[in-house]
């Protein structure tokens, strides 16, 4: 037995992708020209799968501040904050996030993935119980696993199922932490946060909301979905990322709990990793100012999302969720999805291909993420690419969502 024998089925499945011109999971972007255009395999493509919701990756002052930080502080911190020290930029970014979210404190991590690892493994241990939404991101599953807590899944976006399970656990004395996302990354569907808050309050448990795909997009000044729904004060812990609407790299946890910063010396994913580089921190600080002060970015984003969502619906495509900046087109099976992805790629657009287990419920998806920086001409081009594909694979003849479930 070799170490890789356990992957034989996955290797065989992946080898089928080699029958196509381009491996959708191994695309090499030669050069990125703008938030919405890149050169891939020598050809210009419109990028529709980057989660670059506000298109801030090329914002002039974000780049300027990142360059200044590089020149002033070097390329990296070369170690963890508990060993090498915290830089002034880390402190400023944490204060800015805490202020933005009306929280007592925020803790910054090098990536969004590590933010979930650090917050979950820091908050819970084997004496605690975490109840997590079934469709949670891998970083949530991994953080829960790392914590050692008892993990109980509840049905996706079902406050009723959570309520039933908490009722069954009413005599269990462990601390309970409920973990949900505001917007789910694959389908783009949103959580009924107000109903979850109602359940959590009735049972007296804690609530963590991952706002990775909603920060900068929803709510007053882009504060997120909990803020938009008026339930921000009921969220005990917020997790977010800088790699989507903020257009850089990193993640954070934020809370009003007076002991939250205990995690700085108890959470191993915080303590034992190199801290965020000065340039990434500077870019995040600057991007947060754009999010606070430029509502027109959100206006553009939502206009683009509506145009693409409505157009693909009119073509007959089965969209997984109501309109959001994530527009996930359901495919009937893996082969069709890969074939369709390649057709779109050849037509000049790069979307995400998502297959099980990366997408929930055995679903195969062509996942688009819209940017505020897409022009209306680019959105029309994307729609045209789907229209050309639909002439060959008629979406109206594909099995519908209800039949696939």
């Amino acid at each position, binding site marked *: 037995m070799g170490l890789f024998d356990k992957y034989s089925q996955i290797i065989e499945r992946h080898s089928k992708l080699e029958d196509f011109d381009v491996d959708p999971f191994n695309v090499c972007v030669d050069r990125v020209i703008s938030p919405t255009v890149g050169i891939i395999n020598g050809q210009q493509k419109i990028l529709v799968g980057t989660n670059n919701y506000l298109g801030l990756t090329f914002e002039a002052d974000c780049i300027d501040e990142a360059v200044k930080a590089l020149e002033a502080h070097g390329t990296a911190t070369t170690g963890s904050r508990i060993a090498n020290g915290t830089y002034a930029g880390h402190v400023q970014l944490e204060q800015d996030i805490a202020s933005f979210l009306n929280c007592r404190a925020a803790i910054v991590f090098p990536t969004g993935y590590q933010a979930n690892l650090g917050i979950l493994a820091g908050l819970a241990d084997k004496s605690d119980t975490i109840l997590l939404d079934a469709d949670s991101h891998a970083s949530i599953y991994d953080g829960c*696993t790392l914590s050692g807590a008892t993990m109980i899944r509840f049905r996706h976006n079902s406050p009723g199922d959570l309520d039933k399970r908490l009722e069954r656990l009413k005599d269990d004395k462990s601390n309970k932490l409920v973990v949900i996302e505001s917007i789910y990354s694959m389908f783009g569907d949103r959580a009924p946060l107000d109903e979850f808050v109602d359940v959590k309050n009735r049972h007296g448990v804690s609530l963590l909301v991952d706002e990775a795909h909603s920060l900068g997009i929803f709510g007053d000044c882009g504060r997120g979905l909990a803020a938009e729904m008026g339930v921000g004060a009921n969220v005990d812990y917020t997790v977010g990322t800088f790699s989507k609407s903020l257009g850089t790299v990193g993640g954070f946890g934020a809370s009003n709990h007076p002991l939250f910063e205990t995690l700085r010396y108890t959470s191993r994913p915080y303590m034992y990793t190199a801290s965020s580089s000065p340039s990434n921190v500077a870019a995040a600080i600057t991007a947060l100012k754009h999010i606070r002060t430029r509502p027109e970015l959100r206006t553009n984003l939502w206009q683009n999302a509506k145009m693409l969502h409505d157009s693909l619906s009119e073509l007959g495509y089965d969209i997984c969720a109501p309109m959001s900046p994530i527009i996930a087109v359901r495919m009937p099976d893996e082969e069709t999805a890969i074939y369709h992805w390649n057709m779109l790629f050849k037509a000049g657009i790069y979307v995400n291909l998502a297959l099980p287990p990366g997408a929930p419920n055995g679903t195969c998806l062509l996942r688009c993420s819209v940017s505020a920086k897409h022009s209306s001409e680019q959105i029309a081009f994307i729609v045209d690419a789907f229209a050309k594909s639909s002439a060959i694979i008629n979406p109206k003849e594909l099995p519908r969502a209800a039949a696939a479930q």
Partner: protein
Amino acid sequence: MEQMVAVIWTPENVLDEIRSLLEAYNPNGVKIGSATNLSSELNIDSVAAMNLVMEIEDRFELDIPINQLPDMDTPKDLVDIVLTRVNK
């Protein structure tokens, strides 16, 4: 009026219920016994296993932590977990 009768769960009737739930994961019609391997014989991957656990939870009205997934190789393992929890 019809009276609700509490089911007394035994290894036999729990196995019957689990075999019934497993049929949805058995498109090739493998004969399912108590020792059938869920992964190698029924191709149930980690995500499908979590969904199966959820169906078992609903059927028996109990919670099974997914931390126990590594201990679930066969229907018999599932039966043991269910019986431990329904008899708590």
